[in-house]
Structure formats: structure tokens, C-alpha cells
């Protein structure tokens, strides 16, 4: 078996952007996303996600439909395709991702709030980052905006790995 494109650590926080890229086969990202998810499925690493993942995933799935309406030819996805991606995500989430109750954990909640105040990281994203920071694991993401905001704090930026750039 060939070496994975992006070897994952034994534990990591997986951002919604990675799961979305995998589920919706996003151009320029799907190979990396598949590499990560395949390793998670094979048990090479434990992938933590806060329960907020679902809210973000649903938002992204809806945008895929909206994109279909706005730019039918370039971005379009039919409802059955979106439903299909949703089902894949459901199975991935139940079988291989490890959901953690970030919102209910006071330390994560407070850290996310501080990240929002200090760096302007949006609330959902801040919970992913807080989870990585507090439990000393890397957050793997495609989200350049979060990385850019985090760059103001070396400790935070160090915890976030931009897939395709940092890893």
C-alpha cells in the first residue's frame, strides 16, 4: 500500500471543511480529504469533532443546493446528490468520527469565547480551535480564513494545520 498523502497523527480534530470536501468531492481538496478520512476509517488516528460539526455540515450542504440555483453549471448539485452526501456523512459520523460535547464543556466554551474576542474567529470555528488547544491535538482544516486570523497568536496558529500547506 502506498504512503498516505497526508499522514495523520494518532489524534486530531477534523474541521468541517475536511468532511465537506470529502462528502462533496470538492475540487482541489478531495484527494487530501480522502487521504485523511481513509486513514481515520483504517484506524490510523482518532478523529475528534465537536457536536457543532453537524450544524456546519448542514449549512454547507444547503449552500451546495443554493449554489445549484445560482450557478447551475459550475457548482450544481441535485437534491439526490446532496442527500447522498448527507447519508455518507451520517455513516462516517456514527462509525468513525468521535463526537465530543464541546458546547457542554465549560473550558472549551470559555476558550472559544476568548478566541472570538481576541482573534475574531467565528463562534463555531472557535470551538474547533478551542478543542484542539485545550486537549493538545492538531486541528486539520482547509479554512484559510481561520488560519489567517489565528496567525496573530503563535500558540493558536501552531495548533492549526492547513491541509495542503502545513501538512
Amino acid at each position, binding site marked *: 500500500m502506498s504512503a498516505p498523502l497526508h499522514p495523520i497523527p494518532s489524534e486530531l480534530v477534523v474541521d468541517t471543511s475536511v468532511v465537506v470536501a470529502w462528502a462533496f468531492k470538492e475540487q482541489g481538496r478531495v484527494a487530501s480529504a480522502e487521504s485523511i478520512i481513509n486513514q481515520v476509517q483504517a484506524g490510523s488516528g482518532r478523529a475528534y469533532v465537536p457536536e457543532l460539526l453537524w450544524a456546519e455540515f448542514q449549512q454547507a450542504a444547503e449552500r451546495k443546493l443554493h449554489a445549484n440555483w445560482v450557478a447551475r453549471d459550475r457548482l450544481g448539485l441535485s437534491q439526490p446528490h446532496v442527500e447522498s452526501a448527507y447519508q455518507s456523512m451520517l455513516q462516517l459520523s456514527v462509525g468513525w468520527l468521535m*463526537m465530543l*460535547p464541546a458546547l*457542554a464543556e465549560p473550558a472549551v466554551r470559555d476558550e472559544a469565547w476568548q478566541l472570538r474576542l481576541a482573534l475574531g474567529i467565528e463562534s463555531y470555528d472557535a470551538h474547533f480551535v478551542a478543542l484542539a488547544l485545550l486537549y493538545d491535538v492538531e486541528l486539520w482544516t482547509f479554512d*484559510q480564513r481561520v488560519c489567517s486570523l489565528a496567525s496573530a497568536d503563535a500558540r493558536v496558529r501552531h495548533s492549526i494545520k492547513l491541509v495542503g500547506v502545513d501538512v
Partner: protein
Amino acid sequence: MPIVHVHPDPEQAHRMGVPLFVDSSAEDNIQAIREIDRWCRERGLARAQELHLRTLRTEHGLVRRGICYRPPPAEYEQRELEWAEVLRRRESMPETLPTDGGPESG
């Protein structure tokens, strides 16, 4: 590693066909979940996927309790079937452009 108590021991639980309690003295719920999960995986066990572990005071101090079990072969077989289904479904999925403002979306 602050797994402070396991009852019954995994082999005994397996023979009896019952789950086991794994107690962690971790400081918070998430850390306890991680530790119990790791402890289980190292022994070929699975953790019941509770999000909020029960907290109780025992002779080992304040602990968070996870429930674990040894998955039967059928559970592994089912997972393989489910993953095959995911892969099959993905074959018909067309590529899309990122919609989150990534470099590819312009």
C-alpha cells in the same frame, strides 16, 4: 494514565457476556472520554458512545465512568458493509467547487 478502576476485568466481563465500567479520574468530561476510549482501543474493546459520562464519588475519588464492551465479530462485519456502502455511494457523486471562499472558488 488516570484510569483508576475497571470492573469487572475485561476477560471476566467477556466470559459473563456483560459490559464493564471504566472509571477515569480525568479533570473533565472530554478528557475522560478520550482516556477511556484510548484504554478501550488498546485492549480491543469499544466504548459506548456516551457524550456525558456519569460522575460519581468512589473509593478512588471523584471519577467519570464509561461503559465498554468487546464488540462481537458481527459488529466489525457490519462496519465493513457500511463502509463499502459509503464508497459505493461516493462513486456517483460528481466533483463540486468549494463554497467556503477557498482559493478554488474564486
